[in-house]
């Protein structure tokens, strides 16, 4: 279980790690602390170095420059079999020649435990992942979801200090993936082990993690809580990787301590709240999330800024509808998401609509 004082203890420290594979730089100076007991995610597009970083923690790759500390000791050159980490592989790597119980108990065999003890712990581990009574199953008779649970049980039975998960959900279908997301989160809370997850799926990272490191081009672009990443992305690239964001170029007309008056080409003036050191005359980009924009239905609906436009596409998701609206007299298209409630019928493509824009919910990026 997590306790407040424990969460500040760092279990993994990565210091100035660089890794080159031939001419390719996979990691370009990464430093990072992971706290004990947290669910930490490495998120980024493929080729960003997240898997290489995970393999460095597990010991399958060693850094060209830099050090890796686990539990306070230098593990930079310690082989994977001597590290207090265990891994759930992307392909699950279930041994095809062993049955479920033999797979789960694989790592215990070396510890010369009595058979009763091994069997008891295997049953315990299987119960933890809801696979009671599956011990005698042949591994090739398992479904994708079951294979994943076996891989989890096989790693957790080792009682590692850190559990590493390499895109563990990418091979599952959407429905199962969503179930496993919440189960993994619960499992992590139950066992209290630090989980480090590698994923390219931002939604997965947001829903499961305590903290996320977003990686681009072998570097950490931003390390924050899911909420922090979503609400306060530092760069446009992070903003567009985490969820959807509308970007609108603008010029600062006037600024006070808390308010900016912006001039947008063709669109006119907008007033927004942003405490920043932005001077009048600066060219900036304004970012706003689709759910912070609204379609104004009645003539009486009001917002800080109102623009009219035309709906160019409407995607209905049941609870929500996503509209793409082309703002009048501009070539700017914005995404607007609206909760479907009784007073708001779904609007058709081609209808004109008024888009309301609150002044408190924007992010300002340079350039």
């Amino acid at each position, binding site marked *: 279980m997590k306790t407040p004082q424990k969460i500040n203890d760092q279990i993994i420290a990565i210091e100035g790690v660089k890794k080159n594979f031939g001419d390719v730089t996979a990691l370009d100076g990464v430093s990072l602390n992971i706290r004990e007991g947290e669910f930490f995610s490495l998120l980024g597009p493929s080729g960003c170095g997240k898997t290489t970083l995970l393999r460095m923690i597990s010991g399958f790759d060693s850094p060209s420059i830099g050090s890796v500390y686990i539990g306070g000791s230098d593990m930079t050159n310690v082989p994977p079999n001597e590290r207090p980490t*265990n891994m759930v*592989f992307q392909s699950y790597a279930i041994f095809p020649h062993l049955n479920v119980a033999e797979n789960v108990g*694989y790592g215990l065999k070396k510890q010369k435990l009595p058979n009763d003890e091994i069997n008891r712990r295997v049953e315990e581990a299987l119960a933890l992942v809801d696979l009671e009574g599956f011990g005698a199953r042949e591994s090739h008779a398992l479904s994708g979801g079951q294979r994943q649970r076996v891989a989890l049980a096989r790693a957790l039975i080792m009682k590692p200090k850190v559990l590493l998960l390499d895109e563990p959900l990418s091979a599952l279908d959407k429905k199962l993936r969503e179930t496993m997301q919440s189960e993994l989160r619960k499992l992590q809370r139950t066992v209290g082990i630090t989980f480090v997850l590698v994923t390219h799926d931002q939604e997965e990272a947001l829903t499961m993690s305590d903290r996320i490191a977003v990686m681009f081009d072998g570097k950490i672009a931003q390390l924050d809580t899911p909420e922090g990443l979503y609400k306060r992305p530092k760069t446009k690239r992070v903003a567009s990787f985490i969820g959807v964001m509308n970007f609108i170029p603008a010029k600062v007309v006037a600024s006070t301590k808390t308010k900016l008056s912006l001039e947008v080409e063709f669109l006119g003036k907008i007033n927004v709240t942003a405490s920043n050191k932005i001077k009048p005359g600066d060219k900036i980009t304004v970012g706003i999330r689709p759910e912070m924009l609204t379609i104004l239905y009645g003539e009486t609906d009001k917002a800080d800024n109102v623009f009219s436009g035309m709906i160019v596409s409407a995607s209905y998701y049941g609870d929500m509808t996503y509209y793409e609206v082309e703002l009048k007299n501009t070539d700017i298209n914005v995404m607007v998401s609206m909760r479907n409630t009784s007073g708001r019928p779904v609007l058709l493509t081609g209808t004109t609509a008024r888009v309301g824009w609150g002044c408190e919910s924007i992010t300002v990026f340079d350039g």
Partner: protein
Amino acid sequence: MRQESPVGKGPATRWRKPRFMPSMSAGGWHGLALISPPFAYSLLMLAAPLLLVFLLSMWTQNYLDLDRTFTMANYREAASEKLYQVLMIRSVVISVIVTIVTVLLAYPIAYYIAFYGGKRKAMWLLLITIPFWTSYLIRVFLWKVILGYNGVLNGSLIGMGFIEEPLTFILYNANAVVITLAHAWAPFAILPIFVSISRIDTSLLEAARDLGDGPLRRFLRVTLPLSMPGVVAATLIVFIPTVGDYVTPRLLGGTDGLMIANMIQIQFGKANNAPLGSALAVSAMVIVASISITFVLLNRRFLRAKG
């Protein structure tokens, strides 16, 4: 077989025939036509001679003609005669040793090519087949040159001062047969083992490492069991033909190295007793088949797992 259409509508005549028959038989004939040339070939070249050998083994040779009354006398003689027993046992023992030596030597080579071959895998595999570019007889004679009394091996060892007298236990006996056969069959053992090692998912090897195994334990617990299908195939490919080999023992085996196939050849030739030769051949076949089947059954748990 007639069946009613599950769909009630439509003209009745259309459904009178079972619908699957025409298409199935068309496909069936097509397939038969495709396999018939090789089928006829194997019928003529394999099944017919085999049948002839079976029949022959139950007849009797009366100098120039055959007595075609059914008898098991040839089998009784094959089983009871001391000489045949010795030759049969020796053939199996030599083959087993050849198989063990070949597979043990082939495994590391296959392992090396599969894991460390990198971009040169194809080159290594090509190099392995180089001995086949010359005829088997020439290779056997080359072994004579190497292993002979004044041969390359003895000459070098004496020249370097390791021995005073030439070694004699390396030619014209069972050792020479083992050495030559092990060399000749090595590629046949390397290839299936290479294939099955190559098919092992590297993440399984990493998983074993991750779960605490050092390189040796990992080899014994993951690599070896998963490459067993290749080892079993290599064993059968080497064992089955070498039991019946007669060129090698004839040329290199001396008198101590003769095998059952040499005796079968003698029966068909000089001894002019084809029925006894056939009975010996059938007996050898049965023995080899039972050993092979037992071996496969003993290893079935490795063969069942899907790599």
